[in-house]
C-alpha cells in the first residue's frame, strides 16, 4: 500500500479535482407588485425564472401599511386570461401553509398559453391577514419557452381535456434525472382540479438516433396531481420524453416532451 499512496501523492499534483459541486443559490426576481385598496397591504410577486407557459412556482411577499412583513396569512391565487371573446383561468397551487417561509408564501400557477395578441394574463391575489380580507389583481407577461413544457390531450376514455406540465428535469444531465410531472383536468373554464388516479409510463427516445435509455422509473402519484419518477439520459442532445397515461378504463392519452441539452 505504501507504493500506492506514494504514487497517489506523486500524481495528485497534476490532477485537478472535478468532484466539487457548487451549492445552488436561488435568486428571486420581482415580477409584479402593488397595494391592495382594502387594507393597503403591499403585495410583491417573485419568481426564480422568467414566467413561461407551463408550471411556474410563484413566491408572494406581504407587507402591512407600516412596511412590516406579514408572515401569517392565507393566500389564494386566481390566474385569468382575458381573450377577445372569453376568459379562462388555469391550474393553480395555492400556498399550503399560512406561514411564510423566509418571508415567502410559495404557490404555483400552470399558465396554459403565452400572453400576446390572443389575450393577456393577470393574477388575482386574495389575502386574509390580520383578520382582514383584501385582494389585488396584477398583470403578468407569460412567454412561450423555447421548448414546450406543457402539453394537453383530450382523454380517449372520458373525453375531458387534460393538461400535463413537465416540472423535472429542469436541468437535465447525462445520467439519472428526477422526473416530475403534474396533471390537471379542465373541468370548466374556471376549474382545473389535479388528477391523481393515473398510471403513467415513461419512455425516453433519442429521435435522431432512434434509441432509448434503460432503467427509467415510471412516475407515480405523490400528491396534488404531481407524479414522481426517474428518467435516464445516456448522452446530451435532443430527447423525446414519451408519456403514456392510463386511467381505470385504459389509455387516456399519450404525448411527449422534448428535452434538449
Amino acid at each position, binding site marked *: 500500500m505504501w507504493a500506492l499512496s506514494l504514487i497517489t501523492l506523486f500524481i495528485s499534483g497534476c490532477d485537478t479535482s472535478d468532484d466539487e459541486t457548487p451549492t445552488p443559490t436561488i435568486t428571486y426576481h420581482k415580477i409584479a407588485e402593488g397595494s391592495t385598496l382594502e387594507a393597503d397591504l403591499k403585495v410583491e410577486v417573485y419568481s426564480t425564472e422568467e414566467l413561461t407557459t407551463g408550471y411556474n412556482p410563484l413566491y408572494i411577499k406581504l407587507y402591512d401599511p407600516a412596511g412590516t412583513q406579514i408572515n401569517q396569512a392565507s393566500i389564494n391565487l386566481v390566474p385569468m386570461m382575458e381573450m377577445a371573446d372569453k376568459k379562462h383561468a388555469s391550474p393553480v397551487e395555492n400556498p399550503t401553509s399560512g406561514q411564510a417561509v423566509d418571508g415567502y408564501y410559495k404557490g404555483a400557477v400552470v399558465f396554459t398559453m403565452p400572453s400576446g395578441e390572443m389575450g393577456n394574463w393577470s393574477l388575482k391575489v386574495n389575502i386574509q391577514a390580520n383578520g382582514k380580507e383584501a385582494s389585488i389583481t396584477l398583470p403578468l407577461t407569460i412567454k412561450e419557452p423555447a421548448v414546450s413544457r406543457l402539453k394537453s390531450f383530450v382523454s380517449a376514455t372520458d373525453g375531458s381535456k387534460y393538461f400535463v406540465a413537465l416540472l423535472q428535469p429542469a436541468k437535465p444531465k447525462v445520467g439519472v434525472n428526477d422526473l416530475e410531472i403534474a396533471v390537471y383536468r379542465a373541468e370548466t373554464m374556471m376549474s382545473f382540479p389535479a388528477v391523481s388516479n393515473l398510471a403513467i409510463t415513461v419512455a425516453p427516445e433519442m429521435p435522431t438516433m432512434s*434509441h432509448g435509455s434503460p432503467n427509467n422509473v415510471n412516475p407515480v402519484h405523490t400528491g396534488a396531481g404531481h407524479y414522481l419518477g426517474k428518467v435516464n439520459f445516456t*448522452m446530451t442532445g435532443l430527447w423525446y420524453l414519451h408519456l403514456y397515461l392510463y386511467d381505470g378504463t385504459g389509455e387516456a392519452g399519450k404525448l411527449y416532451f422534448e428535452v434538449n441539452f
Partner: protein
Amino acid sequence: MVKDMKTPLLIGALALAVLPALAQHKPIPADSIRTILLQEVAVTTKQHNHQQHLQEFHNASQVATTEELMARMPEVSFIRRGSYGMEPTIRAYSAGQVSLTLNGMRIQGACTDKMDPATIYIEPLNLQSIEVQTAGAGSMQGAAIGGSLDMKLAEANLADAPTLSGSMSSGYQSAANAILGGLKLNYATPTWGLRASGTYRKSQNYHNGNGEKVLYSQYEKANIALSGKYLLQDDLVLKADFIADDGWNIGFPALPMDVGEAKARIGSVSILRESEDRIWKRVEARIYANRIAHYMDDSARPDLPVRMDMPGLSRTSGFYLEGIASPATNHQLTLRVDASSSYLEASMTMYQEGQTPMYMLTWPNNRQLQSGVAAQYTLQAGAKTQLQINSRANISDFSVTSAEGRDQLQVFGYTETERQFFIPSVSLQASRMVYKKLKASLSAGFNGRTPTASELYGFYLFSQFDGYDYLGNPELKPEKSIQSEFTLSWQQPKVRVQATAYTSRVENYITGTYNPDLSAMTIGAKGVKVYENTDHALLTGAETSVIYNITAYTQLVSTLKYSYAQSSDGDPLPMISPLRNVTSLRKYFGDYLWVQAETEIAAAQNRTSERFMEQPTDGFMLWHLRAGYQKQTEKKVWQLNAGIENVFDVNYREHLDWGQITRPGRNLFVQLSMGF
C-alpha cells in the same frame, strides 16, 4: 550484439540485420558453447535467446514495422483493424490479458477501440529487443494471465574516445506506395553518451491481391527517440530517455472511424548499478511518465447520417525498482517492486445538421492505481537440473473520478464504482537436460488479471467485430488462470529446435453477454452486450521453431503454431489463429550478399465463435523473396535490402483481421542505408 561487431563504426540502421548472421560464420570455440549453454540453462534467458535468434533473423527486412517483426515470433499474433496500430496477442490472449510494457513501463492506450497498443511507439530503429515471456515468468512485469511482452529501447553508448556514429536510411514499398526515412545519431564519450533517432513513414492506401485499392488504409507518422547516458561512478549509470511519436491521418478500413491524430510522449529516468562483486549484481530504478492522446473521427467517410468525434486521453506515471542478487553459487534472486497510476478519459460527440451535439463519456474519467511485488528465484540443482519459482502479489484500485462519470454509470444502477483487486500469482518451473543437448522444462502455476477500464466502466463502446455496443460492468471479478507449459529444446549452434505445448484454464472469463433489455446506442448496432464473468474458458496449443544452419552459409528458420480455445459451453473463442507455418531459407553468397526465400502458410480457420458470429477464414500460402547486400568502405557501411512480398499476388486475409478486409497483394520493397 554490439560486442560482436568488428568495428564500432558499424552501428548502421541495418547492421542488426546482417551482423548476427556474419557472426555465425565464425567457428564457435568449444568454450563459448559452454558459455551459451550455461546461459541457456537459465530458462528465461534461454527463451530470450531463442526469440532473439528469430528476431535477428527477421530483422532483415528493415522496411518492416515493429509489428511485422513481432508477428514472426511464434507466440505472437496481431489483431488487425488497419495497416497500423495492430493489437498484439500472445497465443490466444488479447491485450487486456497480456502485460505490454516498454522498458518495463506501463503505457495505457487512449483509444476505446484498442487502436493504439504501445507497440506502435517503437520503431525498429530504436528497438533493441523484444522479450516475450509466456509462462509464469511473465509475472515479473505485471499481473497478467497471457504472459508479458516487453520492448527494450536502444540506448546511448559509451566509448573510450569521443565518437560520432550514425546512419541514414530510406525505403519504399510498392503495395501501399509507402516511403520511409530514418536517421540515427550516436555520440559516445568515456563518461556520457547521447543517442537520437527519427523515423518518418507515409503510407497510402494499399492494393490487395485483387488489385483493388483498400480505402482508408493509409497512415503517416513521425517518431523521435532520445536517450542519454551518464556514468556517475564506475558501476553506476544514470539514464534518461524520451520518445515523441505522432501519427496522423491513420485509416482503419475495418472500422467505421479513422484516427485524425495520435500523440504519445513517453519519458523516463533511470539509474543502474551493475557490479559482479556485490551480492546485488544489478540494481535498476526507474521513474517514468507518459501521456497518450488519441483523436478518432469519421470525417473522411462519405454520407453518414451522424458525424462522430471520439477523443481519448491517457496519462500514466510510475516507477519500478528491480534487483538481481546471487545469494550463493548457483542461486539467483530477482526482486521487483513497481507501482503506477493511470488516468483515462474518452468521450464521444455526435453531430447532426441542425441538432444539439450529442455528447457522452465513453470512458467515464477513471483512475487505476496498481502496485506489485514480484520475486523470481532460480536454483541450479546440479549440472543438469534447474528450478525456478516466480511469484507476484499485485494490488490495484480502480475508480471513476468525476461526478459526470459516476452519473452515467448510475443509469445502470452502479452506485459504487471503486474496486480493489488483489491478484496473487505463483509458478514453478523445472528444467532438466534429459539427453545430451535435449532439455525438458515443465512449468505450472496460477495467476490472474484485473478487468480493463473498458470492461469495468465502458459506456456504449461499439465493436465493429460483432456489431454490438459494449457496456462495462463495475462488478466484474478478476480473471484467474491455472496454466501449465511443457517445452523440449535441442540447442546446438548448428540446430536449434524448440517445441512447446501449453494449456490453461481461465476462470471468470470476461466476455460480452447480450442483454435483450437494452437498446443499442450506435446506429446500425445489433444490440448491447454487457461484460460479464462467464464460467471458464480453455486455451491450449503448441509452437515449434527450428533454426538450422545447414551449412555455414545456408540457414533455415521455420516456425509452426496452433491454438485451440473454447468457452465452457463448447463454443470456440473468437480471434484464434489457425495452424500457421513460416519457413525461410537464407543463403549467403560470401559475406556481403544474402538471398532469402520464404513461405507463409496458414490453414483455414473453421472453428469460429458462434457467440460472436465470427466468420471462417480460408487458408492461404504466400511466397516472399528477400535479399540484402552490404558494402563496407573505410568510413561507411552501405546496405541495400530489397525483395518481393506476396510474390504471387494472393488475395488473402488472416483470421485475426477484422472486417473481411484483405491484406496487401504483391509488394516490392527496397531500402538503402548508410552507416558511418
